[in-house]
């Protein structure tokens, strides 16, 4: 009787133990498997996706699928492999624009007087506006005086040579305290861009390591035009334009055509609308739209990381115009007075799918060499040992995400599908992609070129680009905390390698 009871107790204990192992075993294994090594190359991350093209590299590397720790990766390259450090602007050409930017960690005052504990470039945040004309070679020497984690500068929206892309652990090592790094690139396209750190970027961008970059056409601007930069950033949750709380005032004469260059440095999109005059959305992400019509009572959405150039013709009667940027703060354009009442956000938003008129793309997106899917999902799991509900790309969680492999000259189509329940501003480095369709509806307006594309929850986009800028390029969510939560993949050109690693002695941490 006693024996039976003891045997029963033992059996029950064994069952409980087995149930515990069955329950906790898989998560424990997943936890262990998710731990990242101290240093790793993005080339060894995840699995290669050749977009349907079978190349010699693909044939040699069909097994590359598995965890980061196990497989040999897609870094197996033909003998012609070249390091991305050789992908630079012409080293023999003299620079036209030469700037030094000194980064510090410090307490500083915003233009409005508020004190902020953050980071500065040349003593201020935002850093100085970098101006260049199309075709000029820009040379920026970045000096880290006192930012403990190290820094980089990424030229957001500029299709720079890969070595100047400024991604810590991918295109360079983070610049430690007392060190410097020089970026060189040709400003190939007139438009509105910005720069920001891509080392611990979710924290360094938020706390001020950023600034505007404006590339103007080579010809002098025609008479009767003016240009205003409006960089949106929140410091300690306080909304600012060009580092100033409240309105930015800019002088504009009656009849003058003013281009307000709105730069959204934040992690979510913001609406822009105009009171006192109609406006045209002249450019998106540094590319002019084709024949944009004037609109009124309409808001234009500016994607996180994206830019929108708002063009306003000042009323002849001399009355001022207010460009609202997401709320009370904005740009007020005037001559005699800046007294223009705020108006609420219009209910309608401009749909760029049908805005402007069609124009030639310069390539045929209907005959792509590669087709990729970039499907964003979400599921529970571990990210480097941290439990949570993390983003997935094509069903895979970071770091087991696809590496999109292309060859130079390929026409590439990407279908971005967002099933994650949250919007994502997707940013592809080094390239501009054109939007072909949204939710299956084809674009009928002006060619809509983007480097930062808001993909709403439940939406899908077809985009295309020409792979004309060799290197290894991040393709990630510019809601920067989302990037730290694993929404990062890369676009890699065949035959290009990187000597840099994420982690390691430089402490590279691009997200």
């Amino acid at each position, binding site marked *: 009787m006693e024996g039976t009871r003891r045997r029963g107790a033992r059996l029950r204990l064994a069952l409980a133990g087995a149930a515990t192992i069955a329950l906790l075993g898989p998560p424990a294994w997943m936890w262990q498997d998710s731990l990242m090594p101290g240093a790793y190359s993005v080339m060894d991350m995840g699995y290669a996706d050749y977009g349907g093209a079978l190349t010699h590299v693909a044939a040699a590397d069909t097994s590359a699928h598995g965890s980061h720790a196990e497989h040999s990766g897609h870094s197996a390259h033909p003998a012609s492999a070249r390091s991305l450090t050789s992908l630079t602007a012409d080293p023999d050409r003299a620079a036209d624009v030469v700037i030094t930017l000194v980064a510090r960690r410090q307490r500083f005052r915003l233009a409005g007087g508020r004190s902020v504990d953050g980071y500065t470039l040349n003593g201020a945040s935002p850093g100085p506006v970098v101006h260049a004309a199309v075709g000029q070679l820009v040379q920026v020497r970045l000096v880290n005086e006192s930012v403990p984690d190290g820094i980089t500068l990424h030229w957001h929206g500029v299709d720079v040579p890969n070595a100047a892309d400024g991604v810590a652990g991918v295109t360079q090592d983070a610049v430690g305290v007392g060190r410097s790094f020089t970026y060189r690139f040709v400003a190939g396209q007139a438009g509105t861009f910005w720069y920001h750190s891509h080392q611990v970027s*979710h924290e360094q961008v938020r706390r001020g390591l950023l600034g505007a970059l404006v590339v103007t056409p080579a010809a002098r601007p025609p008479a009767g035009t003016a240009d205003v930069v409006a960089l949106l950033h*929140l410091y300690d949750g306080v909304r600012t334009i060009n580092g100033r709380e409240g309105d930015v005032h800019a002088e504009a004469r009656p009849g003058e055509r003013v281009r307000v260059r709105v730069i959204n440095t934040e992690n979510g999109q913001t609406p822009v609308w105009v009171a006192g005059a109609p406006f045209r959305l002249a450019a998106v992400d540094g590319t002019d739209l084709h024949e944009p019509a004037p609109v009124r009572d309409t808001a234009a959405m500016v994607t996180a990381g994206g830019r929108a150039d708002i063009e306003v013709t000042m009323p002849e009667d001399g009355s001022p115009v207010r460009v609202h940027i997401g*709320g009370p703060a904005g740009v007020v354009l005037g001559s005699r007075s800046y007294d223009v009442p705020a108006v609420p956000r219009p209910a309608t938003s401009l749909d760029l799918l049908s805005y402007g008129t069609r124009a030639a793309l310069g390539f045929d997106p209907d005959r792509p060499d590669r087709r990729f899917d970039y499907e964003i999902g979400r599921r529970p799991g571990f990210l480097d040992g941290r*439990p949570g509900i993390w983003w997935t790309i094509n069903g895979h969680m970071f770091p087991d995400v696809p590496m999109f492999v292309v060859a130079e000259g390929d026409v590439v189509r990407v279908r971005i599908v967002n099933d994650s329940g949250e919007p994502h501003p997707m940013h592809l480095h080094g390239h501009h992609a054109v939007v072909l369709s949204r939710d299956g509806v084809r674009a009928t307006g002006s060619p809509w070129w983007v480097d930062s594309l808001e993909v709403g929850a439940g939406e899908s986009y077809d985009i295309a680009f020409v792979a004309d800028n060799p290197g290894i390029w991040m393709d990630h969510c510019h809601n920067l905390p989302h990037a730290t939560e694993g929404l990062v993949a890369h676009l890699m050109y065949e035959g290009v390698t990187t000597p840099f690693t994420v982690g390691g002695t430089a402490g590279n941490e691009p997200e």
Partner: protein
Amino acid sequence: MKLVYKVLASLVAAEVAVQAMMVVLGDAGLFRYVEQGGVIDKASAESGDMAFPEFFAFVVHGMNGMMVIPTIALLLLVSSFFAKIPGAVKGAALVVLLVAVQVSLGLLGHQITALGALHGLNALLLFGAAVHAALRGRRAATGATAQPHARVETVV
């Protein structure tokens, strides 16, 4: 193990109460901020630190809901295997199930707002299930100390 079961179940219930408090605290701060002229859009909501102090409550709600409570619920289920309380596994499994439903409703509610209402309702079910499990644990715990005594009586 009975005590562990009881404590973990009580912790789930307490955490659900914290969740309810946090989300209303955050809402209250948000509404006051708006009333005082503050403006909020996606850019400010995603900026990491909002200009009203109660914003921390939303962060706590998210971390608690997606990491802490699921972990406690899982440990509760493990402890139920060893707890020797009648119905312990069933009670803990119900808690785990309701936690999974709760997290899903919370996230899906961002897209389909009506599911947010169900998130509120399911919170009450989860709270009830956790309290019920904790009480079951307590009954068993007091029952266990009484048992040897009862056996002695029958033998004598």
